[in-house]
């Protein structure tokens, strides 16, 4: 497989995940889409230069994370995108079959996610994208054991709020 096909395949497979991750960082949909695409183009440029990338998925999310934060500071005037608010508005018609109680529970969980610290949330979201602790650590510039600790705290907090 040539380089273009390789990156194109990764793009196909992971672009939605990257896009979603960028939304969770607070980027607005158009910027998130542009940034997601940019990440894969950077991957292409990097690989074209002959650098070998051990784990492309981890690389993609590390770059997406950093690039996302940079883009977010630039969009400051707009305020950051909050998918939670959108959820609260759209939830009723989105899940008509759900009981009120269930929806209540979900909303409570979402509130709990909002209450996590920034670093806890980042670890959690990157973990949700399937990254391992050392990979998350590399993306955030912290040690894998710190990642474990942030995740533990995040889960503990969510568990408490969920009850």
């Amino acid at each position, binding site marked *: 497989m040539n380089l*273009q096909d390789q*990156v*194109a395949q990764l*793009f196909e497979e992971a*672009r939605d995940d990257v*896009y*979603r991750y960028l*939304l*969770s960082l607070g980027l607005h*949909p*158009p910027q*998130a*889409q542009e940034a*997601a*695409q940019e990440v*894969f*183009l*950077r991957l*292409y*440029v990097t690989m*074209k230069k002959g650098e*070998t990338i*051990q784990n492309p998925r981890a690389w993609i999310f*590390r*770059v997406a994370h*950093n*690039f996302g*934060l*940079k883009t977010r500071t630039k969009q400051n005037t707009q305020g950051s995108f909050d*998918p*939670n608010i*959108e*959820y609260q508005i*759209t*939830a009723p018609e*989105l899940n008509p079959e759900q009981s009120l109680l269930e929806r209540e529970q*979900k909303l409570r*969980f*979402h509130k709990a*996610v909002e209450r996590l610290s920034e670093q806890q949330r980042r670890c*959690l*979201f990157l*973990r*949700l994208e399937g990254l*391992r*602790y050392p990979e998350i650590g590399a993306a955030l*510039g912290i*040690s894998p*054991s710190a990642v*474990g*600790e942030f*995740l*533990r*705290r995040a*889960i*503990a907090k*969510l*568990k408490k709020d*969920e*009850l």
Partner: protein
Amino acid sequence: MSSPHMRHPEEEELLRFVDGELPARASSQVRSHLEACWQCRAQLEELQSTIGQCVSYRKNVLHRHLQPPTPWPDIYTKFAEIDASIEHPSLLTRAARFLSWPLQNTRKWAPVAVALLIVWGLWWSRFRITPSVQAAELLQKAIVAADTHPAMAHRLDIRTKTRHITRTTAKVTNAVEDSALQSIQALFVAANYNWDDPLSAKSFEAWRDHLAERTDQVTDQHDSYQIRTDAGSGELKDATLTLRSQDLAPLAGRFEFSNQEWVEITAIADETIAPTQPIAATHEPAPESHASAPAVATSPAPSFSLTPGDELHVLASLHNAGADLGDPIEISRTSSEILVTGIGISPTRQRDIQSAIGAQPHVTVHFLESAPSSATSEKNAKPSTDNTASPDLRQFQSRVADQIGGRANFEQLASDVLDLSEPMMSRVYALRRLAERFPAATESQLSAPDRQLLHQIQAEHIAGLRQQTSELSRLLKPVLSSVRGSAATSELASSSWQPATEELFQAARRLDKLLAVMFGAAPGESVGDRLPADLLASLTQFRAMVEGYTRVSSKLER
């Protein structure tokens, strides 16, 4: 397997366990414990349910936006644009040709030419190939200039959002701790930027050189050059160094950190002072300033600086006590202190470590309790699904067991193998730590005896590894002897030991994972017929890599 009735695992351990982040041995222990302990299984169930909630959060919350606002573009078109922009000279000529097209064609061709120019310009500005080369050259010249005219002790004017202080760069032997500049220092240390000499081309280049990605910009301001490097990531996201055109002496630096803090450092011109009297004057911040900014109080400047060599000596002491293998200890170095942090270490072991380090100056050792696990809430205890090996794997294991003479033999073998894989991984982790803490640039700063010390520690780990891998091969022989596998050995791709360490580490992790799957300590994707062949290949490859690694590192010792 040994000690199924271990203590209840901490919550973090459980999380690491389900995430497959525990070393094989610990993972196997947790697994056996879970089989025995309902309470912990219930706790695990709870954990899984919270994880499940997170997954559905991810699904629900962003569901509406899963479709991006516009359809995804054809990425191949973008690739073509990149390819074209990389070969920019030819494109430039083409653009020029288009522009000089006969006048009557202007209407037809000009937009194309303009579009091409724009595309070219966009990519040009995106990658800035020339500024990067320019910046590197300029910095290199400035480093040479600084080396040929050793800097006098000069004063620096340091400004942050809220503070304004003065310090000297003189490295005098005065052990007074500097609490004043600590918060600023912390920012620089976290960013891996040499705080001892923040305003120098050398420090700037060292930082710049380690960036995974960067964008440079060089501006010529008739009497000075300004080099601005945008890191795009990390603690320090953006730094600008101003060099005097005349002699490339650093005049000023501006540092922007990821937490919105910024620091500006300006050299106070030609005002040399007696190095024994470091001065630090503080001006109170304006009343409207934020309280959250780094607090800087009056205090003398840091007056000595710890080197990688000092860190190496601490590491060597830990190594002598065997504390660089498996103990959760981290070492970090600032200019004024080497901090050794141990987490969840038993009191006896703490004393060992403390006495191994002894009374080395400027070393602080502290021990933290491991994070307290929240008590299991009994009211939520519910029967748990079985967390043991899949039927596929069970079947496979019993086949292996038959092959080597029964279940008891298998259990014994599993225990031996896992007992061996853990110290093996510890060795690899220890090597990796050496490579991370002493990259080529840092290694070159070490004195010759220190370099030798570094390689001695390394050699001891390698010797341990070789012995462990040959023992592992011996143990696995009865299981793998019948396996026909194309044992494709691959050599190390790297010729210097630091990147080679990373290769070795990756190979070790693969091997460890396969061992854990084979001996039931971790769930795995590749179960069944392929597993023994995978394991054989992985083991052979790892042994070849250890040999290759031995050669790479012994080459350096000479």
